[in-house]
């Protein structure tokens, strides 16, 4: 059986009139109740995630789960190839990979917005000099990535 969580919109419960008391009353609630938390992307975009770790791959999976079109690459060669396609709105990679990302986007048409991930405070400070939005490894969760992507897409990249 294909069991799956169907509850993002399954918060609905129905009130029925169960009069459990004499000289009183109660009600029962029927329905699925509260669901799993699943974040959704109100503006689905095309996202390229670059990294070689399991974490990067899982980030890509989470972004895809939220509704974005996501491509995950783990080699510089693939990164350059994908960036050259001009098919992405956003590219997520470590701030230390900025040179590789820039090399790939400089020649591309409709270059994606780089969303760097800073590992340290010092990296974050440097990244903020060049980029409007910077993710911080120790602080940011998937919802923050989604929000940053959304703001990027909403701002016309």
């Amino acid at each position, binding site marked *: 059986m294909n069991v799956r969580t169907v509850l993002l*919109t399954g*918060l609905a419960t*129905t*009130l029925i009139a169960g009069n459990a008391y004499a*000289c009183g009353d109660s009600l029962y609630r029927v329905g699925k*109740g509260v669901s799993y*938390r699943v974040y959704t992307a109100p503006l689905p975009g095309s996202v390229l995630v670059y990294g070689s770790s399991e*974490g990067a791959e899982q980030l890509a999976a989470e972004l895809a789960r939220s509704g974005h079109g996501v491509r995950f690459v783990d080699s510089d060669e693939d990164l350059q190839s994908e960036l050259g396609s001009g098919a992405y709105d956003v590219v997520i990679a470590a701030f230390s990979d900025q040179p590789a990302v820039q090399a790939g986007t400089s020649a591309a048409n409709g270059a994606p917005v780089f969303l760097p991930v800073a590992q340290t405070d010092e990296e974050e400070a440097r990244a903020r000099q060049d980029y409007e939005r910077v993710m911080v*490894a120790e602080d940011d969760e998937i919802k923050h990535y989604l929000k940053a992507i959304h703001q990027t897409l909403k701002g016309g990249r």
Partner: protein
Amino acid sequence: MDCLKNSLAHVSVSWLASLALIATINVAQAQEQRRGDASLRLEFQSIRTGTFVADGADFDYWTTDTQVALVSGDYAINDRWTVFAALPYVRKRFNSEVPWGGDPHNPNDPYWIDFVPPDTRFWDDGSYHGDFQDFSIGLSYRVVKGPVTLNPYISYGVPATDYPFFAKAAIGKNLWTIPVGTTISYVPYFSDWHFNGNLAYVFSEKPMDANVDYWLAHLSAGYWFKANLTVNAFLSLKYTLDGVSLLSPIFLDEGAAFPPDYPGDFDTEEWWQHDRLIGNRNLNFGLSADYFFSPEWKVSGSAYQSVWVEETTEIDYAFTIALTRFFGGK
């Protein structure tokens, strides 16, 4: 590259637990309802009631203990329509809290002269009495607009058995009801908060031709501490528009003196049906939690009590625990 490897390790660790649980779903599945989506829920409730408040007067000499086993379920007919049903088994007992007996309702008492109750079952003897209460079946329609989901619904509740209603230990009013309402759910984007509202107008069978329709409302706010764990606070309201007070003179024999003699002046059909005629109003506050063990199984619990009542008994405490099994459609 190493930097991303390290930095995203944080994401990886943070989400590992939830990823393991939701690995089998994708967003399209999660957002959509499909034919065959279904759930089956078994819930147990334990409720202690105390003071009855009528027109500002407190009656504080008995309590009741109620235990409910509620089986409910729903089934998606298609991506919009869902049928649901519920059947509670309720057992309840009356407890006197005073030496003089606490006024158990006994249809066999000798004061029943002008009106003789047709149902002589005596349930206020201090023992538990139980039966299946009201079977409900209904239909809901799902509308989604961005982060907001609306589910208008209609249902029909009918007593599953002919249980007695003249007793403090009665398990219900033995009246059919038709709740018409809607739920509204709001889950802000990129947030761990969720909000749920539910408002229903309940058309009720009219005992002695009296309008005892009422409103039901439920509001909740919850926070997902993890993808599979949420804690919620809620308010639930019942508000009967009409209905009478327990202290109403309609329950008295014609020409009864004031103050009336109790129970001698109360051998009327109205008193026999007073639990059906009284306009119950109550507001409860509670906390609840839901935890998914897996995509198929969820356990839920709640605790609540009354914060305001009129013409009804206060809930001193109530606890519920429920197990829900989910089934995926095609």
